[in-house]
């Protein structure tokens, strides 16, 4: 069935209005006033959708003023796209209202689930990658994009366990979701690093296995670390520390394949003073600037990444 979101140029509102290929920072209430007072030179801000699903007050006051000056990404954490139950229509309506109010350049959500029955579990929980979950995720994304009237980005998760029921690897699964549902990829480079360490994978090969031509945004964040039952390193996606050098290296590698992509510095715990976050974002911004100076998008490399995707799809079809 042809999907009206399959081509980015056909996506409603996406072609004319996208995030700049610069660094952005997750917007925190602690920083509202300083941001408005200093008007930092930064590409965009990102907020969690659910935090702004309140009637009024300071959150809307400040976001409205910041939106007047900056590009915005709205990032959902509660849609539960990977749940084995139907999507919540009330929540979709609340999202639609929020997107209508703030007209963000990007809307994204997670390849994860977070609800069960009436309970919201407030975490991004993993799902097996197989034909059944693929169908469900694609159906849900199709429903989201139809309901919201726009293309969404789907984020790769940080995970701590794998499933015996998985028959696809994460990159092939995401490539197929993006192909079928016509959504984009929010490539969380920290999540790739965390999951690669946690599951004994090669992070560079994982990046290469992702649908890189459809990356609409990159996330960078810090992690915490502990040990698993065997004493092997287990990384926790904490969003509570500066970006690690290994993740900066993987980011540079990723940009070499994708060209410049809007990049968010995520910090949700142990939030530092605004200048500290801004300085970290500037590290990413400098790399993006250098890339933009060289070329808008390295077409040849993109072709190569597309070829790799084609190979991974074919490999999967042969294996299936």
């Amino acid at each position, binding site marked *: 069935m042809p999907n009206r979101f399959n081509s980015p140029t056909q996506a409603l509102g996406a072609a004319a209005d996208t995030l700049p290929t610069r660094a952005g920072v997750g917007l925190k209430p602690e920083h509202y006033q300083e941001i408005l007072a200093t008007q930092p030179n930064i590409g965009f801000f990102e907020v969690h959708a*659910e*935090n702004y*699903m*309140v*009637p*009024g*007050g*300071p*959150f*809307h*006051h400040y976001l409205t003023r910041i939106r007047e000056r900056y590009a915005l990404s709205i990032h959902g*954490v*509660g849609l539960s796209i990977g*749940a*084995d139950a139907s999507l*919540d229509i009330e*929540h979709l309506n609340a999202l639609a209202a929020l997107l209508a109010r703030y007209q963000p350049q990007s809307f994204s959500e997670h390849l994860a*689930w*977070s*609800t*069960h*029955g*009436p*309970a*919201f*579990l*407030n*975490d991004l*929980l993993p*799902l*097996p990658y197989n034909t059944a979950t693929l169908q469900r995720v694609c159906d849900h994304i199709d429903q989201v994009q139809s309901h919201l009237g726009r293309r969404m980005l789907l984020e790769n998760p940080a995970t*701590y*366990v*794998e*499933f*015996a*029921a998985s028959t696809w690897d994460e990159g092939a699964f995401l490539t197929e979701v993006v192909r079928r549902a016509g959504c984009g990829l929010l490539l969380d480079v920290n999540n790739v690093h965390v999951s690669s360490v*946690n*599951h*004994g*994978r090669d992070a560079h090969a994982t990046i290469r296995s992702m649908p890189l031509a459809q990356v609409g945004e990159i996330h960078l964040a810090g992690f915490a670390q*502990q040990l*698993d*039952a*065997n004493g*092997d390193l*287990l990384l*926790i996606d904490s969003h509570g520390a500066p970006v690690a050098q290994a993740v900066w290296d993987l980011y540079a590698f990723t940009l070499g394949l994708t060209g410049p992509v809007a990049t968010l510095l995520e910090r949700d715990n142990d939030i530092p003073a605004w200048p500290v976050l801004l300085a970290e974002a500037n590290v990413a911004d400098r790399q993006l600037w250098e890339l933009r100076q060289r070329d808008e998008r390295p077409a040849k490399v993109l072709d190569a990444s597309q070829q790799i995707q084609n190979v991974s799809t074919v490999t999967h079809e042969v294996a299936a």
Partner: protein
Amino acid sequence: MNSQTAFANALLDPELPCPGGLTTWNGSDPATRFAVYRNNVMVSLIDALADTYPVVQELVGEEFFRAMARVFAQANPPRSRVMAYYGHDFADFLAAFPPATSVPYLADVARLEMARVRAYHAADVPPIQPETLQVALTKPEQLMSLRLVLHPSVQVIASPFAIFSLWAAHQGVLCISSVDPEQAQTALVFRDALDVDTLEITVGISKFVRALQSGLTLFDAAGAASSADPEFDLSHALAMLLRLQLISHLTTTDEYHEHTH
């Protein structure tokens, strides 16, 4: 039972074993890794309660608070994806939580703190125009048959305990040693521009505000307040609501109820 049901149940109940079907690349016990999810969920819920209830936490100490919040969270996971109001029913839990009975005012302090969260996020409604009010004041008899619609952030929290003073002492504006917890107090919570404010109010004003919020006319609300508190002074009460800019508009219809039935 499907796999997400088993996963979700085990997240909330630490007595349940790690769900089946999980694998690890190095053959290590998946239970250690599953515990990361269990911990993420529980810590995020406890942190959300700690954000909303800082004074409750100070009253019982951090260790006791987090243990108590864990018991609450395990039995009461969020029912909404909007976490701002998570634990809106924490006060009822506290009132019935035996280890906390030695602090009898805890539940009412929690009600005050949740009211402050609701006021913070309440809808933005401008105060009444002074001209509108002046016109109404020229016809006092009509005025008494009008209904006053208050700002959506306005809430009254009444308690047999000194909840306002206890709360104020934890903001550093009152010395805790001067507070007699056994003294009944009523607090008015509202938003003033972008800041939430809390005031102690008399029984009469609290009855008046609640009567207005229930849709009574100014005449009936003043009557209800006077019978509850002989000291109630209507002009004083109106002046206070005007000064705090808590009157949103005047109406001849019962707007509090017309959309709800």
